[in-house]
């Protein structure tokens, strides 16, 4: 008996029977990796437990811990993507913890698709404000080349999808008051600023006295009150100013680190 060169019907059936179903995890892993579905998990913060969402492109959301259903619905509404429970990757968890401690070298990729270039400019600028310092909305507006867009800066910060990581809490009102906060309101903003070593009450008291800027009598340099270069200033050299114009008239030049700008009405 001569056998055919190609498979017999029996052999073909046996080989076709070697087809397998993909494990159920494959589809989700692929969709998360390419950024069409997000995973989420809980993480600790000075504000208590948070929900963190991410996909293969980067972190996509930070939110006050709600129940799973509420978060998933909100995430779908704001991003158009499903969120499924997952386990925060160790590297991301470490990077978040280091960021919250003020280590700006900890790199966290962000997935900010669907947001305008203006919003992304505002958030990128907020990322430059160090832990333990604040800047007014007007400073952000001036720094991104849109000095009159102060209100739009406030709106963009309110839409920040990754609060705490993009530190929109470090941007305050131009009159020196704390201002709004998207992650659970102004009291949370005070809590997080206090955790970063600031005294929000004292900041607001100084603002109420009309102190917008602080100059150093020995260097004749004027700074935002929380600028790190002024941290070691002797109390007797401390000169509060109401405006950049007032400081200029007194012979003070703006700090090159914190770059104070004239307040926009």
């Amino acid at each position, binding site marked *: 008996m001569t*056998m055919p*060169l*190609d*498979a017999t019907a029996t*052999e*073909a059936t*046996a*080989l*076709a*029977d*070697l*087809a*397998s*179903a*993909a*494990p159920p*995890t*494959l*589809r989700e*892993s*692929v*969709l998360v*990796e*390419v950024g*069409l579905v997000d995973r989420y998990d809980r993480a600790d913060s000075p504000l208590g437990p948070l929900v963190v969402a991410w996909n*293969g492109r980067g972190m996509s959301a930070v939110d006050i811990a709600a129940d799973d259903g509420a978060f998933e619905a909100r995430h779908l509404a704001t991003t158009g993507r499903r969120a499924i429970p997952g386990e925060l990757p160790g590297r991301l968890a470490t990077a978040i913890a280091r960021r919250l401690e003020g280590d700006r070298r900890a790199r966290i990729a962000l997935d900010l698709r669907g947001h305008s270039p203006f919003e992304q400019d505002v958030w990128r600028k907020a990322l430059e404000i160090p832990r333990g310092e604040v800047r007014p909305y007007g400073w952000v507006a001036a720094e991104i080349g849109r000095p009159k867009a102060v209100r739009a800066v406030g709106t963009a910060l309110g839409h920040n999808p990754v609060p705490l990581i993009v530190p929109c809490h470090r941007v305050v009102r131009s009159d020196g008051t704390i201002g709004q906060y998207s992650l659970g309101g102004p009291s949370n903003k005070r809590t997080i600023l206090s955790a970063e070593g600031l005294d929000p009450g004292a900041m607001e008291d100084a603002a109420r006295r009309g102190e917008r800027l602080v100059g150093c009598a020995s260097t004749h340099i004027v700074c935002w009150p929380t600028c790190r270069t002024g941290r070691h200033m002797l109390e007797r050299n401390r000169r509060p100013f109401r405006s950049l114009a007032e400081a200029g008239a007194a012979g003070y030049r703006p700090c090159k680190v914190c770059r104070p700008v004239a307040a926009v009405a």
Partner: protein
Amino acid sequence: METDDRLTDALAHDLDAAFDVLVVAHQDRLYTIALRMLGDARDAEEAAQDALVRAYRALASYDPERIRELRLRGWLTTIVLNRCRSVGARRTARGPKPISIDGDAARPATEPEAPTATTPPEVAERHAERDRWAARLAALPAAYRTAIVLRHVDGMSYPEAAAALGRPEGTVKAQVHRGIAQLRTMLEAEGRREPEEMTA
């Protein structure tokens, strides 16, 4: 394939909206190809996942016309075979793991649907037969195995398999024929061994 034509149209129109359909339509066959090439469920899942992610990134960089002209089935096959080579090479670098021709040690990893104590005997026998064929296929030289996996496990035509492998059709046919001949030799050898085992 008509469904793939509709799919390439949808992908060209809106990649993000249509990509999940591609995953659902092709994940089982890409996983099967990877599993039969690599012989390990975890390596196969890694290779299939990698292939689909690379496919997405490639599609995202193509203009709509190029996506419409793609022969999805063969294109995805070429990608998963490349990923299998990388995953396989990495595994070889880690050191080979024991390959059990009897299938016992390998079965939990390769066949997720392994029989349990309550499995009826005829189903258990079917699983055992499947494992034996998987082991025979795994023992073939890579070129023969690839050709047989595409032609007989995945069910591609010879022209499709030749295009996916980038080899002439005649070469692929010859590789399938030689692979089948080797499988038959293995079957004959098993047939000679079995009576001895029965009396042992």
